[in-house]
Structure formats: structure tokens, C-alpha cells
């Protein structure tokens, strides 16, 4: 427990700092109230708006832990949203739409995993293929239109409320808990980290790296499918061009802020989720603080840069070095004074 707290402490502190910063500019930021039977307020909005990136970050964490990367998740969101919308549009019902969308996500993951694990294509190149092609596939599914629908059940996925919280918030929290339990209560987490640190040695120790790599890309595809369903439900339509656009980059950023190295190895899903919430707090905060919208991206970039600099091992080493040197000079300066004061 204390080990876990120590692991996520930097992310928690950063989140706290961001919340305080936003509150300074927009004092009402942290207030939460009830409107009927549901919670409302900016923090709730952050939990809801942050859902797509948080979901993507779960899969991305596992992929990055194997020393890979999945650039296709934004496009996979578009594909899965399009598949679900098309199914609903044809009157197949939500009972068919959801499994079809999740299946499409798994299939996309299988494709990425095949390229990476079997054909041994570098992950960044392998997933770039689907990143580019995916939106085209989604356009084919929606026949080039923004495919709108009026299925209330589907819309509930994106904008409904359950037990006071928005459904998207439930989705990522539950997905995070399930994923966390699966990787830590089985040996999946250990095997993923082992492959990420040293693929060759892991293979020689008997780890079936091919199956493992395909699995993590499929998990990533599944997470993207859920995110795609939420985004599509929220706007009641599948937009092949814009659903999940650039979100793969925010998901990678969330993992990086969460402290998982892009070189693979040790990972923490919880820290990545906090990272996703940090990003969303910044997004929401900038909007609420009333800066002209053209500043948003630059302010976000500056904040993210500061966060990553604070986490940089080189900078923290330098800071520690500075601190010890100062302490030493302080001690040196303090010693004579102590002698002088002794007679009193």
C-alpha cells in the first residue's frame, strides 16, 4: 500500500497543483452539487470529459510497458463508433451494436499485434498504418456521412447518468479497476514488464512474447472501442473524421505523465489514469478560466512541459544535488555560530 502511494505520489501532487491553479483563476471550479439525482459541477465534468483519454490510457499503458506504442487508437475509436452507429441505424439494436463495436476494436488490436509480434514491424510504424487507414475504414462504414441515430440507449452510454455519476465516468473507472485487477492478480503484469525490459531474455525464460504482445494490442483496441462507443453516444452520431481525433497523443501523454517509461518495463495503470485526469483538468480549467480560446493549446503545452520537467530524473537529481550542497554550506555556516552562542 505504501509502495503504491509512493509510486503515484508525484501524479497526485501534480493533480492537486493543477486543481489549485485552476481554482485560483476560477474560484467555483471545485464546487459540486446535486441537480435532481445527479451530481453536477466542474470536477464531475472532468470525470466525464476525460473518459475517452482515460480509457485509451489503460490500453496504452500496457502497450507502452511492452516497449511498444499504439498510434491507431484514435482511428479505432472512429471505426468502432461507426460500426455501432451503422448497426443501430439498420435497426439491429444496441444488443448487436455493442458486441460488434467491441469485436471491431479487438480485430483492430489483433491486426496491430500481428504486425508487431509476428511480422516484427516496429510498433510506431505498424500502428501508423491503422492510424491512417482507420479513418478511411470508418468513412466506408458511414458511407462518408456523419451517421446520426436516435437510439436512447446508445445515447445513454455517452451522456446518461447512473447512481449520480455520468456513465462515461463509470466506464473508465470500472475499466481501470478491471484492468488493474487482471494485470496484478494474474501474472500478466509481471510478464508484460519482463518482455518490456528485455524481450530476448524473457523469451529464453519461456515467456511466449508473441501471444503476450498480441494480447496487449487487443486490450488497447478494446479500450478504444469502449471510448468510441462513448464519444459516439455522446454526440448521437458517428463522425468518421473527428471522433477520437488526436486522442492517441493525449493518451500517450497521460501514460508519460503517469511515469511509465516509453522504453517499457514497470507500469502503473492508476498513475496513467491520474495523468488522464490531469490533462482533462487542464483542458476544462483553461476553458473555465476564461482565457481566449486561441491560447488553450499553448497554455496546455506549457503546463504539460512543466509537469514533465518536474518529473524528469535529471532535473530532480540536479535539484537534490543543489539541496545537499546548500545544506552542507548551511551546516558549515551554522557551526561557528553554535560555538559563539555556547557560552550563553
Amino acid at each position: 500500500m505504501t509502495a503504491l502511494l509512493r509510486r503515484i505520489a508525484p501524479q497526485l501532487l501534480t493533480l492537486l497543483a493543477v486543481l489549485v491553479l485552476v481554482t485560483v483563476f476560477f474560484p467555483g471550479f471545485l464546487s459540486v452539487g446535486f441537480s435532481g439525482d445527479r451530481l453536477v459541477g466542474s470536477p464531475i465534468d472532468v470525470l466525464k470529459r476525460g473518459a475517452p483519454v482515460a480509457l485509451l490510457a489503460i490500453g496504452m499503458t500496457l502497450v507502452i510497458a511492452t516497449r511498444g506504442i499504439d498510434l491507431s487508437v484514435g482511428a479505432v475509436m472512429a471505426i468502432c463508433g461507426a460500426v455501432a452507429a451503422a448497426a443501430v441505424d439498420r435497426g439491429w439494436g444496441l444488443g448487436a451494436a455493442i458486441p460488434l463495436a467491441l469485436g471491431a476494436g479487438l480485430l483492430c488490436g489483433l491486426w496491430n499485434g500481428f504486425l508487431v509480434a509476428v511480422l516484427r514491424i516496429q510498433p510506431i510504424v505498424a500502428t501508423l498504418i491503422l492510424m491512417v487507414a482507420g479513418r478511411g475504414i470508418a468513412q466506408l462504414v458511414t458511407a462518408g456521412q456523419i451517421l446520426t441515430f436516435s437510439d436512447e440507449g446508445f445515447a445513454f452510454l455517452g451522456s446518461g447518468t447512473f447512481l449520480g455519476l455520468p456513465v462515461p465516468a463509470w466506464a473508465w473507472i470500472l475499466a481501470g479497476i478491471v484492468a488493474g485487477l487482471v494485470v496484478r492478480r494474474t501474472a500478466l503484469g509481471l510478464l508484460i514488464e519482463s518482455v518490456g525490459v528485455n524481450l530476448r531474455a524473457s523469451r529464453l525464460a519461456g515467456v511466449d512474447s508473441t501471444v503476450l504482445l498480441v494480447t496487449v494490442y487487443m486490450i488497447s483496441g478494446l479500450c478504444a472501442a469502449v471510448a468510441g462507443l462513448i464519444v459516439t453516444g455522446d454526440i448521437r452520431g458517428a463522425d468518421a473524421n473527428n471522433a477520437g481525433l488526436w486522442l492517441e497523443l493525449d493518451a500517450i501523454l497521460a501514460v508519460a505523465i503517469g511515469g511509465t517509461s516509453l522504453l517499457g518495463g514497470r507500469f502503473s495503470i492508476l498513475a496513467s489514469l491520474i495523468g488522464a485526469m490531469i490533462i482533462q483538468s487542464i483542458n476544462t480549467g483553461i476553458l473555465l478560466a476564461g482565457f481566449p480560446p486561441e491560447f488553450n493549446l499553448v497554455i496546455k503545452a506549457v503546463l504539460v512541459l512543466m509537469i514533465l520537467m518536474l518529473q524528469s530524473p535529471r532535473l530532480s537529481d540536479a535539484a537534490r544535488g543543489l539541496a545537499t550542497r546548500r545544506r552542507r554550506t548551511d551546516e558549515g555556516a551554522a557551526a561557528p555560530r553554535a560555538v559563539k552562542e555556547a557560552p550563553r
Partner: protein
Amino acid sequence: MLLEARGLLKRFPGTVALDGVGFGLAAGEVHALLGENGAGKSTLIKCLTGAYRRDGGEILLDGQPVDPRSTFEAQELGIGTVYQEVNLLPNLTVAENLTLGRQPRRLGLTSRRGMRALAREMLAGYGLDIDVERDLGAYSVAVQQIVAIARAVHLSGKVLILDEPTASLDAREVAMLFEVVRRLRDRGLGIVFVSHFLDQVFAISDRITVLRNGRHIATTEAATLDRVRLINLMLGRELEQATTHGRTAHDAGAEVLRAEGLGKRGRIAPFDLSVRAGEVIGMAGLLGSGRTETAEVLFGAAAADSGTVRDAKGPLDVSTPARAIASGFGFAPEDRKTDGIIGDLSVRENIALALQAHRGWARPIPRAEQRRLAEDFIRRLDIRTPGPEKPVGQLSGGNQQKVILARWLAMNPRFLILDEPTRGIDVGAHAEVLRLIEEMVAGGMSLLVISSELEELVAVSDRVIVVRDRSHVAELTGQEITTDAIVRAIAAPGANLEAAE
């Protein structure tokens, strides 16, 4: 002496890579540097070329102390290096590669004509007729190698270090390269030649220096050295010490495994191997002779393209490591860092890894059990670590090796392959590893021990298989197992004849 090193000392965590090594290179000679893996050849070269900072000793160039802090500084001083894999840019032209960093300029812009002229001038005298305007990558490795040499000689001009330059060349290309090397020698350069191809070493070298375990063993005229003696020097057989066979030649148990015609084209010729319960099979041979390759096809690290492995019950699948492990095999590889340990993970996780991988991800070993397993092996194998949660990458080499042994002992395999189990570990750990080998065998496990240390093989083996030129060439049993016999088998019949030429 053109270049002289005195008492060079270089330490790495847990091991002394160079222990007071001396080395002298005269102008106008080709000086071969020999030794097995881990002998200290590459460390010595890296200290001479500034890639490593030495921890002690001095380096003299033309009698003046020098202290190169980078390969660039060494180059400025006159020491150039050409590596096995050419470190030039294949997608630039030959001329660009040759003049990179000092392109002739005209009115502040690089002059292509000047570049061409300079490149042709640099290549003059190397017997190369190539178009300097074509991409370097369009030419064979041998030509690239010579271009790299031309560049190094032009930039440095006194000392040329060739690190395994012939490893990827065919015979004709080697001859072409040697022609160039001889010409440079005649021009008065001092040339250091690192290779593990003994024929080539004898063909080109004037003098030979042998390193072993980070120590200088001998420097002699190549003409007065015969091949058997050279191998003795490299493999560390102390001449005065008559090592005898340590294990009683007991009749090991029944045959547990048999490999028939197992091989992989280009790596190891098909071989038969019969393994009996509780026996140690030693494997001797020089670097690159097919020792490790034998282990790799047996363990599925490189899938065999011919042959079968079977036990009493029937054929075994050893096409991947996971399947070989399921068949009861284990493999502690030669290169611990890249093939053995998972550096960032803890001692506990490293020990549990093979067992966990074998059980599958859905049946995790409870953490308490992993801890017990780790603590048990830490005690039994005397692994020096602050605790089971310490990242294994932070332990010394000997302790890393013990962690890998623990990983396999936890699996309780029937056949365990140990590739250089005592390389790069200190004397204490060395003895403990040998003791562990005895223990494992007493428990009925069969071992294949690959080692460059002949005394070690003689001491632990029931049989010794000798490998040369990627095939199994001899098998020694019982009283036949002596370091002398092994050296003779490695050196090949007629070795004395060749040396006498």
C-alpha cells in the same frame, strides 16, 4: 614503441576488466590481440581509443603520455579505429563519407569538386577503383571496410586499430583487405588486429599478444608461436599444472535424452547427442566454433532445421524456448545482460519468471510463495543482495549468474545447459557455481556445460565434446579428458604442421 600502454587498469561494477595490462605497438608492425570473450580485448581497445576512461596506468604515444577522453581526441592524436560493422553512412556517397567533417570549402560552401578530388587522393594507394560519387551502401562490405580504413588513416595516420574487420568478409575479400593492411604496415603505420580467426591471425601478424581474464598473458613473435601453444595461452592452461580428471568416471544413469541429426544450416552442422541421467557433458571449442549454436538449437532459441530430439517416451518439441522448457530443458545463456537477466525487475521476479511463464499468466504464483522461493534460493545459493526486491541489474555479475541458476533450479529441469557459467564472475562465486553444478548432478539432473576454461571442464565433465568450425569433431571420455587432449582436438589434426610453415 609507437604506442605503449603500461599497467592499464579498468574496473566495472563487480569485475576487473583490465588488471594492469601492458601492451606495446611498434611502427610498421601488425600486432594481433587475442583472447576469448571477456578476456579484455575490447576494453583495452576502448581505453586506447578514449571510448572508456581508464582507472589506472598510462598510455604513451611516441613516448609522450597521452590521455584521450573521446574517440575524437584519440583520432586527433593519431589513433584511428575501424570496427566490424562499418560505422559510416551507407546512404551518403563514398566521397561524402571520406570527407565528412572536413569537406573542402570554396567561398564558404562545400565544394563538390574539391570533395571528389580529396576523396580520390585519400583512396589512392588502396588499389580501389570505385566511383566516389556513388552511395557507399552500393559497395560490398569489404570495400566499405577499406573506405573506413582510408578515412581512419587519413584522419589519424599513426595507429590503426582493426576490431574484427574480417568477420563478415569472404576469403577473396579478406585477401583484398590484407593487401591493404600490408601496404599500410609498409608505410610505417602501427596496426592492431583483433580477430578470432586464427588462420588470419597467423597470416597477417608480426607479433601476437594474448589476454585472458583481464590480464596480459604473453606477447610473442608470430613466427615462433605454434597453434597448440597459442590455444593453450588463450584458454589458460597453466603449463606446469597437470590437471587431472576430477569426476570419477562413474557410469551415469540411463539415457534420458537423445538428439539425432540436430542442426541448423550456417550455424551448426547436424550432430548426435546422447544425454544420460546425472551426467555432465562438457563442451569445448574456440569462440564462434559452434558451442553456443549447439545450445541454441537444443533449446529452441534458434529453431533447428534438421534432426529430432527424443526421450524414452517419444519425440520432444524443442522448437521454441517455451516448448523446450515444457520438455524439461533449461538454458543459462552466455551473455547474461542481454539474454539472461531482466535488469529492472527484482531478484524475486527474476527467479520466479521461468516458473511463472511455464504456468501461464492465468495461474499466478502468489506473491508470498514467490518471496519464499526467492528467499530460499538467496540462502541456498548465497546470493548477495540486500533483499529479494532489489532490481537484479544492480547486483554483481556473479550474483546475477546465481539468480539465473536459481530461476532454472526453481523449474527443476532434467537437462540444463550452462553457457560459460563462470565467465566474468569473481573467484569466490566461481567456486560456488562449480559446487552448485556438483549438487545439481547429484540430484539426477543432466548438464551440458560450455566453457572456455579447460580446467573447469576437465574438473566437472564426465565427457567432453569438442567443437570446431561449426561441427562436433571429437568426444573425450573418462581418462582421455585432459586439457592437453582438449587443446589438441581444438587445434585440429595437422595444427603443428601449419604452425611450422
